[in-house]
């Protein structure tokens, strides 16, 4: 992946409560050539989003402690920061009739790194 030097590196916010999996997701984002930010839950993610208007993509888990899950976080982002693209992942199958916000893709866990990276590139383009 080549990114023109005069353009800023796209910023991707990784939201995942399990530290090892967060570390892995951060690595995937770095391998794709982007700058990762980390949050351990939805509340933290929203706080970061409020202070960093330059975030382009959010890569979030669904099941997280603290009331707000990844689906609700995605809905909130779609509402408050419409331009941000979203990648959702989960170890659970999506509940039937789940309404995914627009501009959102889903990967079941464990996901293939190459697929996620391809998706990141598409969203950052």
């Amino acid at each position, binding site marked *: 992946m080549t990114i023109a030097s005069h353009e800023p590196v796209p910023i991707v916010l990784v939201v995942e409560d*399990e530290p*090892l*999996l967060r*570390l*892995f997701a951060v*690595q995937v984002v770095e391998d794709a050539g982007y700058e990762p930010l980390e949050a351990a839950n939805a509340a933290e993610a929203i706080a970061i989003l409020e202070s960093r208007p330059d975030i382009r993509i959010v890569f979030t888990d669904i*099941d997280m402690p603290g009331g707000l899950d990844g689906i609700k976080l995605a809905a909130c982002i779609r509402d408050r920061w419409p331009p941000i693209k979203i990648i959702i992942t989960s*170890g*659970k*199958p999506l509940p039937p009739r789940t309404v995914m916000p627009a501009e959102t893709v889903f990967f*079941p*866990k*464990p*996901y*293939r*790194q*190459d697929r996620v990276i391809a998706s990141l590139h598409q969203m950052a383009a």
Partner: protein
Amino acid sequence: MLSQSQAARRAGALKELAVLDTPEEQAFDDIVFIASRTCDTPIALISLLDDDRQWFKARVGLDVRQTDIAQSVCQIDVDEADMLVIADLTRDPRTAANPLVTGERAFRFYAGVPLVLRSGVVVGRLCVIDTKPRPEGLTQEQMTLLRALGRQVSDQLDLRRAAQVSARLLELQTALIEISERIRASDEAVEMTSAAAAVVGRVLGVQRASFGLVDPEVEIVDVEADWTAPGIASIAGRHRFDDYGALRADLVAGEPLVIEDVATDRRTSANTAAMYALDIGALVNMPVRERGRTVAIFIVNASRPRLWTADELLFLRSVADRLEAGVARLRAEQQQGVLNGEINHRLKNMLSMVQAIASQTLRTVSERAPVESFERRLVALSAAHDVLLQKSWKDADLRTVAKAVVETVGFSERMTLDGPSVPLGARAALSFSLVVHELMTNACKYGALCVEGGHVELTWAIEDNDLIVRWRERGGPPVVSPSRKGFGSRLIRLGLTGTGGTELRYEPNGFEADLRASVEHLAQA
């Protein structure tokens, strides 16, 4: 004199016989005919003694079907259960003022034998009446024959009842079987309860049958499923027991609440308006118990007063028990589903962790292909688990498993899947998905899927109790037999059940694989 308790027993017995106000029946008509001929009297009657009247089940020589009980000669000394003979009714103080004697009917001579049921209750008499006095009474033979005919009537009444009861039992039994079947076939509680309500409503001939959940204090019932006869309103919704009378005590104790007439029952007589507003004249509320507590009730309403027989109550008890068992089964299945989902979720997280650890550990490895293969195999295994989870880890269908793998790898538009439905046990499903994954990976690297226009046929068939899976690649590049056996081809050679049965052929027009395993083995593995 009539003893009150014996009169009550008689009334109860007659109610159970369900004979009052029924049409003529040949068996009884024959008996009164024989009685009148035997005793040479113009009149012969089968008189049943109700509370306030005597009603004639069969009669010869009389044009009325009933008279006031005060005019009944049959009721005199009836509880002594012996023959009563009055030679001249005008001369007997008990009958001299009876309008049937003094009036135009002019009864003079009377002889009657008691009708004694097997239960010992006397329900009436078979009698012969003459309009002329008979100082000589009946002959010995006439008396013997009249007694015998009396026993015939009693037997007929008992038999008639027994036939009715057994026909009714059969009906209730059949209904219970139907309810059980419909409960077994349902996978939703509301479906179970409404099916049961409909059958109960029909077989009991009532106006409403419903099922309602009860709060822990048994104060409120939330009626869910509701069956009603045409023209009867639903009572679906919330009701407070105390608004309808003193109904709670029985239900709290787990006893069925049985009311034959809301107007006379002490529990409801104070407030009949609430019941009548819902067209309820009689009712049964059968508690559904769980761990010694009433959690729901099965409700049956009749718009008029009605006798609930012991068999009907037993039937309702059985229906309530079956509903309880059915709902408990659903709940257990739901819990199992939740548990399976949780286990799968943890398994997925664990696989993700393995992936994360491997990825970090192998970061410095310069050859990336094996690292990527590892990740792909892990993801294929995970997809196979999803298929098994949907079937609660029992067994999965071969096509579903194959489709899941194909969707994980991609290329579904260049794959043809065809074959019958074949159940795979959990282990076979996992092995099969890994094998298909390897075959696809190879096809992507060296075979039909690595060039435009190539395609793969994955077909399967049952032959002589063996499952044969055929992998056929067509339109690929020239086929080269590999020089070295890697982990991938070893995995393929393990086959469908991990015990071989695999044949690989590097044919000039495309790679082919045949995988064979016994159907029995597959379903058990």
